[in-house]
C-alpha cells in the first residue's frame, strides 16, 4: 500500500506534465482543436440505440452531433477510433473517494464541506480515471446524523476548484445510528435539530421585524407571535448563521438531501422525517442492503435510490438456520425504481469498477440497458446533471471513454478518457498501470521504439498461444481474447 502511494506520488509528479507533453508530441491538434470528430467502431449512446461505425462531432467540449453517416465538416480534426468502443464517462453518485477521514465526530455538522477534505493528489482520483469514472459526487460518510455539504467533482485538476463541477451538491444525512448510538437517539437528535432551527428562525424573524421598524422609525405594534409571521418574509440567507444556513435551505427544498439508510426500518423513519420537514422531494436515498424490504415505501415516494457496493443481502433464519441470499437491485428493478450503483474503492479487484457492478446486475438477470444506465445516466440525473452527463447525445458534454471493447466485459480496458472535450487519460502513457501489470519498474520517459515493438510482439503472443491452446476462443463471440495492454 505504502509503496504504491510512494510510487504514485513520484509518478504523478512526473506523469501529469508528461501526459500533456507526450500527448502534444503525438498530435498537436488533439489538445488544441476545439472541433473534434470521433470516428468510433461502436458508440453506446445510452439514451438512443447503439451505433456501429458512427461519428461524434464535438465542438468546444460539447457534443453537437452523433450519428452513423454524419458528414464531417472540413474544419474538424478527425480522431480515428474505428476499432474502439465509445462510451459515456461513468458517474459515481455517492462516494467518499479522495477523502482520508469521512466523518466528524460531532453528530450535527451541516456547516462542514468536503471541499476541505478532498485531496486532489489522492491515488483514488488517478484510479477513478483509470477505471473510467469521470464524475464523482464526493460526500461525507454514513457515520453521522447531519454530515455536511457534498460536491460534484471530476478526477482531474490540481486544486479542488479546478476539479469542481458543482459546488454545493447536497447535504448528507443519516437515519441509521452513528457509531455507539442507538436509533432512538439518532432520530431524537434529528428532531431536536429541526425544532431548534424553527426556534432560531422565529427569533430571527422577530428581530428582523423589529430592526425593520426601527429603520422606518416606527414603534413596535405587534407581539412576538405576530412579529414572527411578519418578519419571516424579511430574513434572507445572509442573515442566517453558518449553523443554520444549510438546514434552512434544506427545509425550503432548495438543497438536495442524501439520506443514508442502513436498514429497512431506517427507510421508514427517514421518509416520515423528510416528509414532515418538507425535503422529501429533494431527497436521494442511499441504501444499505437490507433496505430492499422497504421497496414499496420507496416506490411510493417516487425518489431515486443509490445502492451500496455490496449488493447482496444474506440472512439466516433463526428457526431453521437456512441462509438466504438476495441480490438487492432485482427488487428495485422489479418495482420500477430508478437506481444507481456505487463502487467500493478499497475493495478487492472487482467492486472497484462501475462496469463490473453493472455486469453483476446483468449476471443476476437485470437487462443490459438498465445495467448500463445504472452507471451512467441514472447517477448523472440523480446528482442533477442528467442533461449534461451520462449519455452521448447532442448537447451533452464531450465527457466520454474510449474502450478497447464492450464496457461490461472483464477483458476491456479504458484506452482514452475525454472530459469536456479534453483528452485527460491515455492508457499507453499510464506507467503505473504498466507497473502493476508487469511488476517491472517503468521508465517515466516513453520507452524507445524497438522496445515498444518487442512488447507488442509479446502481447500478440498471448492470444496466439490461447488460440493454439483451445478452440474455445474461436467463436466465443464477445468473449474474444483481449490483448493485455502491455503498452503497444
Amino acid at each position, binding site marked *: 500500500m505504502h509503496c504504491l502511494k510512494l510510487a504514485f506520488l513520484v509518478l504523478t509528479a512526473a506523469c501529469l506534465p508528461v501526459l500533456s507533453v507526450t500527448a502534444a508530441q503525438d498530435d498537436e491538434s488533439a489538445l488544441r482543436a476545439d472541433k473534434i470528430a470521433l470516428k468510433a467502431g461502436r458508440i453506446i449512446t445510452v439514451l438512443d440505440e447503439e451505433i456501429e461505425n458512427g461519428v461524434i462531432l464535438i465542438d468546444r467540449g460539447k457534443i453537437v452531433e452523433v450519428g452513423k453517416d454524419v458528414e464531417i465538416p472540413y474544419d474538424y480534426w478527425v480522431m480515428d477510433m474505428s476499432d474502439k468502443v465509445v462510451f459515456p464517462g461513468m458517474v459515481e453518485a455517492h462516494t467518499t473517494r479522495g477523502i482520508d477521514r469521512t466523518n466528524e465526530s460531532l453528530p450535527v455538522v451541516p456547516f462542514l464541506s468536503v471541499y476541505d477534505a478532498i485531496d486532489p493528489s489522492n491515488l483514488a482520483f488517478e484510479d477513478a480515471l483509470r477505471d473510467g469514472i469521470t464524475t464523482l459526487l464526493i460526500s461525507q460518510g454514513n457515520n453521522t446524523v447531519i454530515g455536511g455539504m457534498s460536491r460534484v467533482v471530476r478526477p482531474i485538476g490540481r486544486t479542488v476548484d479546478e476539479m469542481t463541477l458543482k459546488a454545493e451538491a447536497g447535504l448528507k444525512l443519516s437515519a441509521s445510528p452513528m457509531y455507539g448510538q442507538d436509533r432512538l437517539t439518532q432520530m431524537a437528535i434529528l428532531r431536536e435539530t429541526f425544532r431548534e432551527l424553527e426556534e432560531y428562525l422565529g427569533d430571527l424573524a422577530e428581530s428582523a421585524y423589529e430592526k425593520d421598524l426601527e429603520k422606518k422609525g416606527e414603534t413596535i405594534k405587534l407581539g412576538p407571535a405576530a412579529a414572527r409571521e411578519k418578519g419571516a418574509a424579511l430574513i434572507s440567507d445572509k442573515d442566517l448563521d453558518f449553523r443554520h444556513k444549510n438546514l434552512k435551505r434544506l427545509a425550503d427544498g432548495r438543497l438536495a438531501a442524501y439520506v443514508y439508510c442502513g436498514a429497512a426500518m431506517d427507510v421508514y423513519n427517514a421518509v416520515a422525517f423528510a416528509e414532515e420537514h418538507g425535503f422529501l422531494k429533494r431527497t436521494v436515498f442511499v441504501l444499505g442492503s437490507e433496505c430492499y424490504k422497504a421497496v414499496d415505501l420507496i416506490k411510493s415516494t417516487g425518489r431515486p435510490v443509490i445502492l451500496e457496493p455490496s449488493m447482496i443481502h444474506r440472512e439466516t433464519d433463526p428457526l431453521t438456520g437456512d441462509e438466504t441470499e438476495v441480490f438487492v437491485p432485482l427488487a428495485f428493478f422489479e418495482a420500477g425504481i430508478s437506481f444507481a450503483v456505487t463502487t467500493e474503492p478499497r475493495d478487492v479487484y472487482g467492486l472497484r469498477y462501475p462496469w463490473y457492478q453493472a455486469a453483476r446486475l446483468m449476471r443476476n438477470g437485470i437487462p443490459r440497458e438498465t445495467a448500463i444506465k445504472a452507471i451512467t445516466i441514472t447517477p448523472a440525473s440523480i446528482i442533477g446533471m442528467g442533461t449534461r452527463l451520462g449519455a452521448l447525445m447532442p448537447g451533452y458534454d464531450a465527457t466520454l471513454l474510449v474502450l478497447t471493447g464492450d464496457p461490461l466485459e472483464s477483458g476491456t480496458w479504458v484506452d482514452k478518457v475525454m472530459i469536456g472535450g479534453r483528452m485527460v487519460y491515455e492508457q499507453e502513457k499510464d506507467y503505473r498501470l504498466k507497473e502493476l501489470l508487469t511488476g517491472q519498474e517503468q521508465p517515466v520517459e516513453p520507452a524507445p521504439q524497438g522496445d515498444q515493438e518487442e512488447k507488442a510482439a509479446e502481447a500478440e503472443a498471448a492470444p496466439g498461444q490461447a488460440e493454439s*491452446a483451445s478452440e474455445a476462443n474461436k467463436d466465443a463471440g464477445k468473449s474474444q481474447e483481449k490483448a493485455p495492454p502491455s503498452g503497444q
Partner: protein
Amino acid sequence: MMNSSLVLLICFVLLFGFASAEAREASDSSGLLVVKAPKLYIGDGRVIENGAVVIKDGKIIQVGPLSEAPQGAAEIKCPSGVVTPGLIDASSTAGLIDKYSWTEHSSEVVSHLNVLDAVDMRSRDFERLARQGVTTVYVTPGSGSVVGCRGCVLKTAGPAGERIVVSRGSVKATMGRDSYRRGGWNRGPRGRVDFWTRRPTTRMGVTWIFREACFEARKYRDARTKPGAATVPHDAALESLAAVLDGQVRLRVQARKEHDIWSAIRLCKEFGVDLVLEEGTEAYSCVPELKEYGVPVVYGPVFAYPTGFRAGSGEANEPCLNTAGILHEAGLLFALTASDLSGEGALPHQAGFAVRAGLPRAAALRAVTAAPAEILGLSDRIGLLEPGYDADLVLWSGEPFLPTTRPIAVVVGGEPVHVAGITGAELRVLQRAAKESPEK
C-alpha cells in the same frame, strides 16, 4: 424474466426427466443424469460443440455429441450454456472453525497434526463455494507454525462422511512473517519467560527452525530404518516430515515476498525436497528460479489491495496484477486460488480478473481445473470432463469467467447441488424426488 424462466425450465426438466425415467423402467436410462449444452469445455483445451455429459452413480460415463446421449434420462440443459469441469480451489480456508486463530503453538513443528480436525463439515462456506461453481477444495493449514500441519482435500457438497477425498495431504511450511509473528509476544506478561518464549522472532529464526526440523527428520528416518529401530521412540511429527524427505508426501511452502520464495527454494534444494509454492504474491519476480527448480505455484487471490489477514502481514504490498499471465508465459504449472474469499470473490472471479490482466482464457480454465488437480495429485479423478472422472461439473449461463455469466447448475458427485434461483430446501426436495422415482 429471462433467467427465472430458464430456472423453471431446469427444475421442470429435472422432475420431468426423472418421471420419464420412471416410465421407461425397461430402458437402461434409469439413474442416469444427462447434462446438455451447446459447448463442453473438457478442461485440457478441447471443446465439444452441442455436447452432452452422461452421469451414472457419481461418475462420468460418457462425454460426446448430443446425438449419442441416451434418451429419456433426467436432463439438465441450458440453451446458451457452457459446461466445464467443477472448479478446484487448491488453497482454501473454507470451513475452518476459527479461521485465523487456530495455530497449535505448543511446537514450531506440528507436521503430525491434520487440518481436517479443525474443519466444520457443516460450515456455510462450502455451500457458498458450491454456489460459485467450486466443487473441490484443498483446505490449507494456517501459517502460524514454521512447519505446520497437513492439509486435506474435500468436496464442497454431499453427505458429510463422503466428502473427504484426501484426509492427510501435504505438509505445510511457512516462510516469512506469519510464522514468526507470534514470536513478538515472546516475553509473557511482565517479561516472564514462559510457554511462548520458544518461538522464532525473525526470518533467520524461521529458516533455522525449518532446517533443524529437516535434519532431525533425516536422523529419525535413518535411525528407524536401521536395525534396532524399535528402541527409537516414535515421533509422529518427524514421521511425516521424513515422509516428505522421501518424497512420499508433498511439501507446500507459503511465501509471499521475493526473498522468502528464494529461501524456500534454497532450503528445499538443500534437502532435495520438491515443493509447491503457496500464495507467491511476488512470484512474478522469481520466475527464473521457479522455472529452474520446476516449482508449481498456487497463486492468489488476485488483488489490487491486500485484504483479510494478508493486509496485516505487510507482505502483500507489491502485487503484480498479471502474475498469472507471467507464470503462464513462463510455462510454469500454476493454479489460481481465492483463499478466504467464499462469496462472489471466489474462483470464477479470480480467473476472470486473471484473464483481464492478460492470462489467456483457456489457460485460466486450466488454472482452476486441471492444473490444481495435478498439483493435488488427483489428475486421474477430478479436473476434466472424461469418462471415469468424478461427475463434478458446472453449467454456466454463458462463456465462463465473464462478469456477466454465472453458474446455472452445479453438479457434485452426480448430484445437482445448486440450481440458480432454487433455494437449497427446494433443491433437496427435487433430489429426493430424483432418488425415489427410478426405484418405484
